[in-house]
């Protein structure tokens, strides 16, 4: 005879890096339904536009999330630049792309570590984070911050990197990439990893599309959609092929992320080759008046920025639709019918970033 129980999961849970709370309705060991609840880290930073002017707000936008901070800052700047009709100097576009891809690599490495920790592979966790530190070294050297880059500003970038330094970074990245192969081979070939991830958390292609999944969660279900194909920043010169896996399970999402790391290395290589010379910023005059929806690809998926200006130095509205927020309905779909011990792994495969989702 089956027995229905509600198990509260989180907000402080040994495998969860972040405070999300799920009420799991279980029948024996099987999850029937999952209901998430939020509010532990809701900051309401969207309303700070009333108090900070539009240039200061870049720093607030960067602090939407500490993992993909640069892309948040860049997305906000991009939306405001579109409203104000600013065209960036090409070098600024390329530098932004360079940092955006670095932040994608470090975020995916971080995620690889966390998921390895979730299925109990401590060694893999430590090794992923060891390599991530090398990426952070490059970030710190070029931007001055480790997790909050603080390099984007409206009208360009706040720092320039010399061409010699970029060449040196290119060589360093080559050695990091070689080292990384040893780690990703484990994900690709190791028996225990496959056992823990294959066939778990199935999200069919139709469901992923309908429920509005984004990023690796969507591409792991076989839907080729990547906001980098929009051609913002330097992606208009660089061809980005969306990485797609068709297995629809946790392992597919894992493989999408791993292949994206190598794709990012490839994009950085192209950016470094084609880096144009010249200015990195232009002077911004006037105040934004108008509205724009900007789409960018974050490590976790597509992020949408909405900026509405009214011709004063304060914006009317700033809204960010973060990828984790869009991935919550698909997560609930995945959790239906899974086994209780698989819950942490499935939650981690959408790469939840709760501080993003709650803003």
């Amino acid at each position: 005879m089956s027995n229905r129980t509600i198990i509260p999961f989180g907000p402080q849970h040994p495998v969860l890096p972040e405070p999300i709370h799920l009420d799991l309705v279980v029948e024996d060991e099987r999850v029937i339904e999952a209901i998430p609840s939020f509010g532990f880290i809701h900051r309401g930073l969207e309303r700070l536009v009333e108090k900070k002017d539009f240039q200061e707000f870049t720093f607030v936008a960067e602090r939407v999330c500490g993992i993909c901070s640069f892309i948040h800052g860049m997305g906000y700047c991009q939306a405001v630049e579109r409203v104000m009709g600013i065209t960036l100097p090409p070098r600024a576009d390329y530098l932004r792309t360079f940092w955006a891809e670095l932040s994608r690599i470090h975020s995916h490495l971080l995620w690889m570590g966390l998921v390895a920790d979730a299925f109990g592979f401590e060694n893999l966790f430590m090794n992923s984070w060891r390599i991530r530190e090398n990426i952070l070294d490059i970030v710190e050297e070029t931007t001055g911050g480790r997790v909050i880059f603080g390099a984007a500003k409206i009208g360009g970038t706040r720092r320039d990197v010399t061409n010699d330094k970029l060449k040196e970074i290119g060589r360093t990245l080559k050695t990091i990439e070689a080292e990384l192969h040893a780690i990703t081979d484990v994900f690709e070939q190791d028996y225990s990893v496959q056992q823990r991830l294959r066939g778990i958390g199935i999200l069919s292609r139709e469901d992923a599309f309908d429920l509005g999944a984004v990023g690796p969660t969507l591409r792991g279900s076989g839907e080729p959609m990547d906001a980098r194909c929009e051609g913002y920043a330097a992606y208009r010169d660089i061809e980005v092929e969306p990485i797609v896996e068709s297995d629809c399970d946790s392992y597919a999402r894992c493989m999408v992320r791993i292949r994206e790391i190598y794709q990012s290395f490839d994009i950085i290589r192209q950016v470094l080759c084609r880096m144009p010379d010249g200015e990195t910023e232009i002077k911004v005059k006037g105040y934004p008046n108008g509205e724009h929806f900007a789409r960018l690809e974050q490590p976790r998926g597509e992020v949408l920025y909405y900026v509405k200006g009214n011709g004063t130095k304060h914006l009317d509205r700033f809204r960010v639709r973060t990828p984790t927020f869009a991935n919550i309905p698909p997560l609930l779909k995945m959790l239906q019918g899974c086994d209780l011990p698989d819950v942490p792994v499935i939650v981690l495969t959408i790469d939840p970033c709760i501080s993003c989702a709650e803003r």
Partner: protein
Amino acid sequence: METPQEIVTIASSDLLAKVQEQKDAGHRLVQICATTLEQLELSYSFMGKEGITHLRLLLPRDQPSLPSITDIYFGAFAYENEMHDLFGIDIRDIRVDYKGKFYKISEPAPFNAGCLIPTRKQPS
């Protein structure tokens, strides 16, 4: 290539019909967003192969109310609960209704009631 975007203004009464049209055309829900101006301005964004459509509708700031679209797009429940908690919009018949417990925050409807936007100074 950049996806083309267009903003379509609709009346709040034919929201469900317009959303159903989007669903029939095979579009997916991208986001729902509200802005506090003199009135509440809502944008429902849908994306298809051709581009992004933003359905734009206006609601009064005093006791706004709307039907839920969760019967058409289940994924909308997160956005609708968010709008209920932050803007105080009464959304009827959400499939997963948190009844104001989605964000547990100290003040009700912080984006609507105490919002400074309409009283903001105009540039001199």
